């Protein structure tokens, strides 16, 4: 062996092998290192563009989000909305159904709420109106989610691309709705029912957003229990692991796919309602969801589909997004810095995932091998 080692193919310098399992502490450690590296890169990025020191950067980012009373409430609400959408996409992802249409599902829910507010605002009693809004928003979200799910279940149509296209159908419909309803010619409906206040969600403890946040907390608990302790939650994880196993043990895969997407869509629709009617100044436009449907996918994935971890990941993403925007406020560019920071963190988390799933070993030096 050692004699003709120069002729044989060399063992590669770096070798990857699959890990069977990794201890919890080690996994947390690897993620922690990844997160830290990401935060350092983010700080360097902001330092380069603003000239602040890293500590100043993060102090400024904190002040811009969870620092003051007003900003903290806004950041908490932002976190709650992002969390709600992340929760919505989670059951489908666990099933390996790549729903990237949350953006559209939330938007269509928002549209349904806005529609009810304007159409039935002065004909229905307030509690009835709210109930109608709730049901139509939820139903709209379900319809938007269930169409691709049915095609996936029956004909195995690619769900990633289908749900993606549904986003734009929703966006265009919102544009159309605004054009139809708008009499001012500004392509903007302004604040809905500003004088009458029809269809506004009631304020909890007299505070803006408190009701929204409470509803999202409630949804979080529900989703956690549903995924972890219900039979349907178990079916979802089996389908996600292996469709063949699921079929073998008698799970109706088609039914699970459609049912799970209906749940995803329902939560998205409700989130749309919260975005419109839960705001102190309800309005509707094409960018009301603002890409959070896509960010939510990343949040859900980073949290490993765990609703409790998702709370912290959502808060982190809002911190990076809103904080990054406020730290670079002086540059007068726009809020896109936040997106860059979020993406950098995700790249690092994605990267460190590798070291959890695979073991890296280097080529051992053998005798006679130079």
């Amino acid at each position, binding site marked *: 062996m050692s004699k003709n080692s120069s002729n044989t193919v060399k063992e590669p310098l770096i070798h*990857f*092998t*699959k890990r069977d399992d990794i201890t919890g502490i080690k996994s947390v450690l690897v993620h922690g290192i990844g997160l830290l590296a990401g935060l350092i890169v983010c700080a360097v990025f902001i330092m380069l*563009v603003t000239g602040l020191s890293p500590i100043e950067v993060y102090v400024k980012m904190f002040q811009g989000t969870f620092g003051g009373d007003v900003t903290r409430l806004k950041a908490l609400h932002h976190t709650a909305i992002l969390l709600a959408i992340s929760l919505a996409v989670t059951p489908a992802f666990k099933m390996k159904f*790549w729903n*990237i249409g949350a953006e559209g599902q939330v938007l269509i829910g928002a549209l349904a709420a806005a529609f009810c507010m304007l159409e039935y605002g002065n004909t229905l009693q307030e509690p009835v109106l709210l109930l109608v809004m709730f049901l139509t928003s939820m139903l709209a979200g379900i319809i938007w989610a269930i169409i691709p799910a049915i*095609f996936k279940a029956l*004909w*195995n*149509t*690619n769900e*990633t*691309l*289908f749900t*993606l*296209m*549904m986003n*734009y*159908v929703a966006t*265009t*419909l919102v*544009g*159309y709705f605004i*054009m*139809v309803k708008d009499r001012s010619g500004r*392509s903007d409906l302004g604040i809905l029912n500003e004088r009458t206040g029809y269809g506004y969600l009631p304020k909890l403890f007299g505070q803006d957003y408190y009701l929204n946040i409470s509803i999202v907390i409630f949804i979080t608990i529900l989703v956690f229990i549903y995924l972890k302790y219900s039979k349907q939650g178990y079916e979802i994880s089996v389908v996600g692991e292996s469709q063949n196993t699921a079929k073998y043990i008698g799970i109706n895969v088609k039914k699970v796919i459609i049912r799970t997407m209906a749940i995803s869509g329902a939560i998205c629709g409700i989130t749309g309602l919260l975005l419109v009617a839960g705001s102190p100044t309800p309005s509707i436009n094409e960018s009301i969801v603002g*890409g959070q449907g*896509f*960010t939510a*996918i*990343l949040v859900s*994935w980073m949290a490993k589909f765990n609703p409790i971890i998702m709370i912290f990941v959502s808060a982190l993403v809002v911190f990076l997004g809103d904080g990054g925007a406020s730290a670079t406020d002086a*540059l*007068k*560019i*726009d809020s*896109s*810095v*936040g*997106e*860059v920071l*979020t*993406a*950098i963190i*995700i*790249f690092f988390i*994605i*990267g460190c*995932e*590798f070291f959890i*799933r*695979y073991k890296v070993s280097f080529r051992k030096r053998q005798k006679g091998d130079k």
Partner: protein
Amino acid sequence: MLGIISNLITQTLGYSSTLLFGSTGEIITEKSGNLNLGTPGIMSLGGVFGVIGAYYYTTFVSNFNPLVSIIVTLLATIIGSLLTTLIYCFLTITLRANQNVTGLALTTFGVGLANFLGGIINNKAEGSSGVSAFPPIAMAYQTKLPFADNLGFIGKAFLSSGFMTYLAIIIAIITAIVIKRTRIGLNLRAVGENPATADAAGINVNRYKYVATCLGGVISGLGGLHLVMQYLSGGWNKSAVEQFGWLSVALVIFAVWRPLLSILGSVLFGALYVIPFSIPNLAPKNQQLLELLPYVVTIIVLAISSMRKKRETQPPESLGTTYFREER
């Protein structure tokens, strides 16, 4: 009347070439089994790097040369989109990360960074919140073929676009030939269909994936540059490119992974994009409804092709999955 029609055709070709660059790039990528949802981000960054190239060229070079300006901006775009695509390649191929998540993160990153860098250039070029523009370079890109005006209607309609339009078509044709008729294309398809089999046949799967994805990314990036030069006079406008990126991804499905069909598809999509703005006296709300068409058409094609289950119209078998040799 003829003048209006030829004008319409030229406009359509302008938008369709952006889509054609995007979708040709994505087809090459997807043929290797990588579903790159980062394309909108790559196209945005490709566009903004062109703007950066234009800014530095006009700032630091005193005597303007159209050809040099084109080379500088092209190079800037190629480098920009290559670097962006490498992030995706490293994460999904070497580190075997989930392609959907990585792609979406790359789009978030690319669009965000493009708007950020574009904002900086806008600030530098115009002082406060102005929008930068580099008309001379944009004009260089839009130079017609010298004989276009002498060829009557055909010349005016089909030959009066800038060189990028024809480059897009040429790249699409070459891609079609390479994928369908060469050994490299066969290997690439094998990698996309079944990487384990390709690996067993002695094909270097990772190398094919890297090269195809990077090449695809660079071609997509050119689409962003084209849009910037054709419609934004060489400047940057927030979130203008992203939508075209997603449409390009849609176009790949519409063209059932064939570059030649993608040429037709891009013209159709371009026309669908242009027509709502060109029908006289069309109410804005109906304009909005017409804008639905590209997406609805794509959904229908996607649904029908999955129902018919013809092998020729299916996505590459391993699309969206990562490959690890020891895991079978």
